[in-house]
């Protein structure tokens, strides 16, 4: 179990280093960087590589935003396998996406309780 945590740490950390290089060297904005990573995630799943990657790295592969692309593609592919081409469209949100629904729910809750503060430490 400790070994799994270490692998998640190292793999997750390395993905973030790629993101940092996209920020600092390629001078991309956060929105560009994250969109790019999501697209990479869905392409990797199309090649059948992302699921083995999750088997290997656990949270190191599911926590980075790339896994969004993976789960969307995975849902579309699973449905397409059953129902053919039309499944591509209907299956997209079948498997996912707790991240999106959680973000919406918690976003509205946060708007109810919190106010923004502009202070720096």
């Amino acid at each position, binding site marked *: 179990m400790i070994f799994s945590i270490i692998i998640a740490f190292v793999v997750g950390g390395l993905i973030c280093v790629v993101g940092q290089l996209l920020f600092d060297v390629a001078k991309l904005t956060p929105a560009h960087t994250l969109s790019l990573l999501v697209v990479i995630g869905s392409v990797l799943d199309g090649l059948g590589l992302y*699921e*083995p990657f999750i088997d290997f790295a656990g949270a190191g592969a599911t926590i980075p935003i790339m896994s969004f692309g993976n789960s969307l593609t995975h849902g579309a592919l699973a449905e397409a396998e059953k129902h053919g081409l039309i499944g591509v469209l209907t299956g997209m949100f079948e498997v996912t996406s707790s991240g999106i629904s959680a973000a919406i729910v918690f976003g509205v809750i946060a708007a109810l309780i919190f106010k923004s503060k502009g202070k720096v430490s």
Partner: protein
Amino acid sequence: MKKLWFISCVLLLVGGCSERPQVTSYHVEDNQQELEKLEEFIADQEKISEGSAVFFDHELVVTIQVKPLSKFSKEKITKSFEKEVKSLFPDHKVFVSSDLKISWELKKIIEEQPEKDKVKKDLDKLQALSKEAT
């Protein structure tokens, strides 16, 4: 210094995993011959660190833990393992899982060594759980 400590830690963990797999098992009908046959087979697997098995009324439920560095091909390893176990026990309904949760639950059953009815119920629950989609 910190790095050195980290590297040695990793080496230790990797080294610790290269031993032969540990096997626990339980046969409800107490057929020692079948048990040994399976335990020997699991012990010979190179990419597996742990295996558990329960025999029950011509049903065989096996869970395995793939070694961390082989986990990338976990699905393939599990599939080929399942095939081989099936050919070893052709008259059994074989179920194999490499999931950590399923493995924990199976070990609980092995530890408790419950009565026939309960084993049946527990094993059914286990298989249903593992079939849940993401």
